[in-house]
């Protein structure tokens, strides 16, 4: 990595906008990944209880979020 791009990246790291944008994007990505995995688990016959246990949330929470799908 050249010194110029290295500096540019480090400057970027201190810019809260970049960091906050990354967090927001990560949250959206996480939601999509969760939906894919929950759907897949249901398709394979997992119970809401089993899915909730793996996700570390309550059965009600996961059912409320994905139950109507």
């Amino acid at each position, binding site marked *: 990595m050249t010194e110029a791009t290295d500096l540019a990246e480090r400057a*970027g790291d201190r810019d809260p906008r970049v960091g906050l*944008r990354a967090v927001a*994007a*990560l949250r959206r990505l996480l939601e*999509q*990944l969760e*939906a894919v995995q929950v759907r*897949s688990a249901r398709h394979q016959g997992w119970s809401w209880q089993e899915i909730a246990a793996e996700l570390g949330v309550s059965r009600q929470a996961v059912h409320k979020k994905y139950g109507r799908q």
Partner: protein
Amino acid sequence: MFERFTKDARDVVRGAVEHCEGAGVRTVGAEHLLLALLDREGGRASFALAALGLADRGDSVREALEESRRRAGLSRAESDALAGLGIDVTEIVARVEEVHGVGAMAAGRRAGRPSFGRDAKRILEQSLRMALAHRDRRIGDEHILLALTTQPGPTAEVLADHGVTHAALTRILYGDAEPKAS
């Protein structure tokens, strides 16, 4: 609201649902509205797109939308921000699609008719506002196109990359005058 839509605008809405179904996706998004607009010939929207040099560049727009899907619908700025954390979004999407099929990351793949997602609904509402702002009595396909440029996200980003911004469209459709009420 749909009774105020012109035939062209209704065709776009119907076309968006077809694109959505064709992709095996359950939720109609902004990208499906744009794909449907690109299919049109002879309407106000296609006139505006042609005037902005997009007549022969439909495939380039389609390809850019496809790329956006490979970024899980995140904008380039968002995926760049994640790359800064060492997260390669396209790699994640590629692996998920390998196991769960193309389009798996798009919300909700269920059987039955697709429904309009939040962003698509917002765009249709916004198209009404666009028509009102320009004192047009009916909502045409050009208002849907205008609305697409006002909603931040990957679809507006793709349009802007092809020179289709809100300002450019307004100039083509209405001349230089800005609407009085907005």
